């Protein structure tokens, strides 16, 4: 039975689908401009109100018809369901329409003439909300494939990734313009500030203590409290060892897990352990290292890792991120 309810539904869904069809173009600048333009929205609103008015007038005419019929005592000509529906408020009516179920009292009208092991079946209509939901999901599927694989307006995984990288580069460049997190092994200096060393200590406890012991006395890794160093004992050497690791010997690179400022803090902390007495010191490994007297910048020791020349921007070591 095709009724006016269905007509409204069809109209509504068609509008929705029309809107959905526009989705592929939203990314394009023209469409975006169009959506940003208040005139577009005014037009949409006007259309909406016109449709609403038409619906209201039709409803009103129907109601009048109903009253006229009643006055003439021909109520029975209206299907009983519709007569009942007219007494409900708007939302109840909407709900009933979306459901389109036979009321329980009259379900015998749609009971099928078979039963299986006592199980009977009714033949209710497909709920309109369900049916239209199904149609919309199919429309979604068509549009989706169209966008990704025919129009190519939506990015596939690899394109999406490239875009992410570009955005990331822009953000990073923006940040680096103002920030000073540019410490590297060529310009790193020993930190003296107690608070910063304490932070370094925390990083040490979290990441390094496993192999080098909580007090730096060594374990899997070498003792860090004595003056003997395998890869150099200057702050720059220690920084480079932390940063790039010594994979051949089991020391992992930390450059992906710690940022330069953190590596500076932890390297400084490590050097601050010089001369302390750990509980179980590991035997000395490597060469004795002696800091060049009074020379703050320090010279590169012979076995330090080659580093790329650094950007010599002002270093603000208190900057954390």
């Amino acid at each position, binding site marked *: 039975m095709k009724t006016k309810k269905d007509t409204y539904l069809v109209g509504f869904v068609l509008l929705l689908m029309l809107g959905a069809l526009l989705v592929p173009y939203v990314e394009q600048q023209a469409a975006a401009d169009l959506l940003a333009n208040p005139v577009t929205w005014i037009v949409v609103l006007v259309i909406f109100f016109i449709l609403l008015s038409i619906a209201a007038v039709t409803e009103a005419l129907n109601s009048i018809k109903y009253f006229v019929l009643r006055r003439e005592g021909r109520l029975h000509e209206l299907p009983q369901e519709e007569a009942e529906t007219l007494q409900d408020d708007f939302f109840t009516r909407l709900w009933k329409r979306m459901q389109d179920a036979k009321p*329980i009292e009259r379900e015998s009208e749609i009971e099928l003439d078979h039963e299986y092991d006592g199980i009977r079946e009714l033949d*209710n209509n*497909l709920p309109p909300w369900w*049916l239209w939901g199904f149609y919309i999901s199919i429309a979604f599927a068509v549009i*989706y494939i169209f966008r990704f694989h025919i129009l190519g307006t939506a990015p596939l995984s690899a394109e999406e990734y490239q875009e992410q990288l570009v955005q*990331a580069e822009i953000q990073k460049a923006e940040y680096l313009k103002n920030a000073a997190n540019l410490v590297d092994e060529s310009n790193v200096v020993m930190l003296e500030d107690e608070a910063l060393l304490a932070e370094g200590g925390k990083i040490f406890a979290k990441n390094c203590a*496993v192999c080098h012991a909580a007090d730096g006395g060594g374990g899997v890794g070498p003792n860090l409290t004595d003056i003997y160093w395998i890869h150099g004992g200057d702050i720059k050497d220690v920084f480079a060892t932390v940063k790039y690791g010594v994979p051949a010997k*089991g020391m992992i690179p930390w450059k992906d897990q710690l940022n330069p400022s953190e590596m500076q803090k932890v390297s400084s902390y490590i050097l601050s352990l010089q001369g302390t007495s750990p509980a179980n010191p590991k035997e000395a490994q490597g060469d004795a290292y002696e800091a060049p007297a009074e020379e703050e910048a320090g010279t590169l020791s012979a076995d330090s890792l080659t580093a790329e020349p650094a950007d010599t921007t002002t270093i603000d070591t208190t900057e954390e991120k």
Partner: protein
Amino acid sequence: MQRETFYYNNRWVRNFMVATIIWGVIALLVGVTIALQLVFPELNLDTSWFTFGRLRALHTNGAIFAFVGNSIFAGVYYSLPRLLKTPMASEFLSKLHFWGWQLIIVAAVITLPLGISSSKEYAELEWPIDIAIAVIWLSFGINMFWTILKRRERHLYVAIWFYIATFVTVTLLHVVNNLELPVSFLKSYSVFAGVQDALVQWWYGHNAVAFFLTTPVLGLMYYFVPKAANRPVYSYRLSIIHFWALIFIYIWAGPHHLLYTALPDWAQSLGTVFSIMLIFPSWGGMINGLLTLRGAWDKVRESAVLKFFVVAITAYGMATLEGPLLSLKNINAIAHYTDWIPAHVHIGTLGWNGFMIFGITYWLLPKLYRTSLYSQKLANAHFWIATLGIIFWALPMYVAGFTQSLMWKEFNPDGTLVYGNFLETVTQIIPMYALRALGGTLYVVGMVLMVVNVLRTVSSGKFLANEEDSAVPFGRVFNKPKGEYWHRWIERRPIQLMVLSLVLVLIGGIMEIVPTMMVESNIPTIKSVKPYTVLELEGRDIYIREGCNACHSQMVRPFRSETARYGEYSKAGEFVYDHPFLWGSKRTGPDLHRVGGKYPHSWHYNHMLEPESMSPGSIMPAYPWLFERTLSTKHTKEKLKAMVTLGVPYEEEYVDNYEFYLEQQQKAIAEELREQIEDIQVKSDDEIIALIAYLQRLGVDIKAKDTELAEK
């Protein structure tokens, strides 16, 4: 026609129900165990057969095939004869089916903890057991069809359509996904490799959910819900539309498990759109179930059976909305590999499957024993405890999944990851793991209440082994009533119904799998990718044996947050020698596809021996036995030969002299280890050496600079 009297055999129904309950409790206890292992890793007991990686497969297989599987059979053996007005056709096949299925489960209980596994999720069992499953499954199908052919009811009720679709589709899925080349009695390699294997696996994995956990249970719903509520089914035409739409669309949706992977984009997109189109066919089942209860809601208040059904169907509706939403790429990018997915799955299994089973048990067992349920109160208590259990299970996992995903993706303004150490994102969510274990425990407590209730009920009644019924057989001649609904035509033709179901499910499978196999452009080859060395291959088998892929993926997705953490994203061409693929589906630990060369051998050595020595706070089990066992080379040559058969280009000379190459690499690694770790006691033929060889190989082929060129 004369009215005929006959007897339904209730024994197999009862036996399958008992098996459901026993295996259910066991499978769920294993679940609670592995949930606790994630909170207290020491519960792995340093014992090979008790570690998470192996027990996880036991839990999933147990829950799906033992718990739900037996319940399906119980339901079918009860409902099918009654809907057809004839007893099950063959007592022998029923018996074979029941005992065969239980034996298969026992075989799983033995082999999975021993690490005998093909590594493919929900299809881990090795080839001899796969064959047994096929035989037993066929015996079930034959028994079912034979019964259908002997029916006294001309038309097939909707429940039976679902049973038939289940039978044909599961047969198809099981056979294709388990195509494997045996190497020895308990070892085989998948005939598919890499991307293709992944597609076949998730076509299977997804549809194991669809056609083992969904369609048969919908069939049960169509029988037991109207029976228990004593209400007519809401809409016959909705049954028709949602049945056909469901089976046709479901089969396509598998690739949504592989979004953003190396699977070709077109296949991913098909997975997404068919998942979205699946919402309403799934909901058709939910509506038909819930609206059948129209006019019975007053009964729901008192009846535990109906309460279980209502929550089960609602959980089904929630899971089948959530699933399609998870198939959208932007949501999948957040949820995949996290605990959100287990949360989603458990809404389905604990909510939909479990509660359907409990409802059916409380309704059916008293009937079989001609008595009434011992305690409605206890059943209601079960209902509330189990509901609470699901909430405690799922909510923390949603939180955990979301939290961890956001942590994985968070960047510092300087372009480094905020949580560069994966472990930080794990320790963050351990409290959620603890809550989840509590939820699981509550659920099991509920089941224990059911066991008590069932035992008391059974002891108060008398089992009705042969139940009398009578019916008039239908004649040969059928006068089609005027104005008959078109669908009635196929309802009286079971064979045609089966063939049509098969054709419909074949369409989706063929459309996705065949092009992925045949069209070369789908998997661009990379020149620098070479087969594994013989030692790496053996290491890979250890990786499979220990179930490493239960917690570690090998698939770096093209996200900045992943390439920053792991390295270059994974390419289809890198997996061409991976029989089977090992992409994994969950990252309880970090991805391993680019772990090769990232750490020194000594790091892996120490880490496998005692994970916390290298990663404090790690919840990974220790693997001390890898340091004691000698690598078995009994089947090594067969393995290489099998790989050659499957198309992996090993030179003949290499296969013949494999021992030389094996020892050469073993010695080299052992030597390096001795240099790196003082006083190390390592023999070059220890299993750990093979595993290290494999781990160090992962993802390194493509690190060469010329990859880009080779790929084009």
